[in-house]
């Protein structure tokens, strides 16, 4: 087994809002091994982005519990200055919205070059040269010109490539990609996913891939983590998860998506809707929507247990190992 690159344990990130405390991330454990791609799926608002931002220590929320160790260093214990040196260097991130994630008033070259200047101590000219190289690497045509252009002059796909170029410019060990293709069309998405795969192979970068698209997960990831309402509910390698999902939520999710190669029969649907964080009652967060919910589900929160090798699930149904729904 490859060495652990990132290990998040029992992470809780809460927000103080007008309506009260919002436990956006409420007990998340994630391990990322070197060079692998881990997918995090879950519905809108389940805490995927907050988890990734907390890892970068960029969340405005408050980490109330847990630890994040990256290359054996406790990120939560670093000083701001030390953390700044990790960011963009060993650990980089790309965001969902390529339209808004680039600063409109600086040129592409300035923005890519910035990280290079900071972390690699390059001069302006050197940084620019490297920026051009990076643009070429991510398949941007006319890189020498594009480098002096502004984000608004580029299309969405190009901008996302720029974001990737920026993230990859200091050869990070870990790339956190928060829904990198959600805003893009399928044909462009295919381009970007190809690019990411390619880069990963080339640089042996581990990727933490956040998405709600099970298709993307299936194509890109080695391992998958399913989140629901701030918690990890299931974790398994990609094939196991798709062929043998355990948690009722994961099962429902799998059944409810229409498939290109599927039949015309009615879709399965999980009743009810995703709870708003902070309004949860006690018990399993999925219990109100769960077909199999029993009294214990409504009373107590189950643990995330390893029910098979490398396959964990947070559900009362599997409290006794091996038992199945």
């Amino acid at each position: 087994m490859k060495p652990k690159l990132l290990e998040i344990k029992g992470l809780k990130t809460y927000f103080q809002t007008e309506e009260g405390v919002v436990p956006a991330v409420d007990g998340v454990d994630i391990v990322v091994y070197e060079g692998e791609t881990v997918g995090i799926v879950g519905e809108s608002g389940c805490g995927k982005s907050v988890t990734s931002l907390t890892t970068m220590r960029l969340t405005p929320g408050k980490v109330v519990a847990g630890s994040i160790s990256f290359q054996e260093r406790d990120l939560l214990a670093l000083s701001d200055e030390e953390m700044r040196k990790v960011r963009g260097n060993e650990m980089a991130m790309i965001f969902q919205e390529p339209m808004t994630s680039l600063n409109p008033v600086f040129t592409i070259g300035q923005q890519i070059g910035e990280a290079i200047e900071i972390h690699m101590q390059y001069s302006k000219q050197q940084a620019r040269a490297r920026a051009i190289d990076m643009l070429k690497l991510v398949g941007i045509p006319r890189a020498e010109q594009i480098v002096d252009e502004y984000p608004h002059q580029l299309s969405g796909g190009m901008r996302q490539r720029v974001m990737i170029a920026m993230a990859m410019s200091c050869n990070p060990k870990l790339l956190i990609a928060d829904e990198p293709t959600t805003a893009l069309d399928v044909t462009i998405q295919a381009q970007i996913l190809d690019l990411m795969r390619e880069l990963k192979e080339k640089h042996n970068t581990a990727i933490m891939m956040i998405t709600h698209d099970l298709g993307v997960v299936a194509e890109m990831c080695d391992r998958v983590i399913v989140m629901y309402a701030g918690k990890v509910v299931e974790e398994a390698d990609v094939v196991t998860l798709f062929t043998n999902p355990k948690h009722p939520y994961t099962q429902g999710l799998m059944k409810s998506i229409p498939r290109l190669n599927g039949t015309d029969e009615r879709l399965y649907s999980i009743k009810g809707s995703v709870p708003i964080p902070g309004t949860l009652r006690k018990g399993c967060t999925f219990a109100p929507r769960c077909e199999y919910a029993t009294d214990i589900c409504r009373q107590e929160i189950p643990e995330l247990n390893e029910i098979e090798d490398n396959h964990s699930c947070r559900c009362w149904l599997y409290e006794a190992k091996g038992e199945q729904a």
Partner: protein
Amino acid sequence: MFAYIVKRLLQVIPTLIGVSILTFFLIHAVPGDPARMIAGPEASAEEVAEVREHLGLDQPLYVQYGKYVSNLLKGDLGVSLRSERPVLDEIMGRFPSTITLTVMAIAVMVVIGLFAGIFSATRPNSLIDNVTMMVSLFGISLPVFWLGLMLILLFSYYLNLLPSGGNDGFSHFILPALALGLSSSAILARLTRSSMLEVINQDFVRTARAKGVKEKLVVYKHTLKNALIPIVTIIGLEFGTLLGGAVLTETVFSINGLGRFIIQSIQFRDYPSIQGSILFVAAIFVIVNLLVDLCYGLVDPRVKYE
């Protein structure tokens, strides 16, 4: 960029024409007969008619307007009824005081407002932020003329530090510029704060942080430059407020500027002077806003390509 400048310049023309039409008709809507005023109280009806004819006031309005504009293009704003000097001369004689006052007030506004705004925005909801914003609310609520009086009371009467009026030198402009600039600086502070806060929560700022950019640079490079657009706009607009406020400030501080000239002209019913000076101020304001628009091009690369 050049094409953009030309385009913007061309866009100003209709506005200026509109402005000239508006002032022209505004003044002509005034009750009272300018001919009568010029001819003097003892003049007979024939004499008044003579003056009217001489001034072309018997012609239809559009003809008068045409003449007015053609004179305007020659730089001729007419002759003051009061001083019998060309209005343009009267204006140019006073404009330096007004522009000195306004520019100093802008300086006050920018220095205080920008600083306070950034200061607040970088510590949102802290005690200091709340105090700054409360103070700026007070600032906005202060009438300029009252603030001026209070400054006189304090600095001229009680402390005897600065002159209370006149326009013979820099020191004479300090109090008026403070009075004029302070409430605008409060507005600027609030706007700077809110636009900084708005920008600071945007995705690209997060991107900058994710790159490992130093916090100082995040604020002053990535955030401020983006927040600058509304800030520059408000500076342009506040220039108008300051020009308007100059009327009051000049009165309070006995500065012989354009504002006071306008007041005097109004009190004197010196129509050519009112018309000329208001047009002049409006033109200055339009030009300043044009310059502000051009500044966008420097601040925001997206503007040029619109």
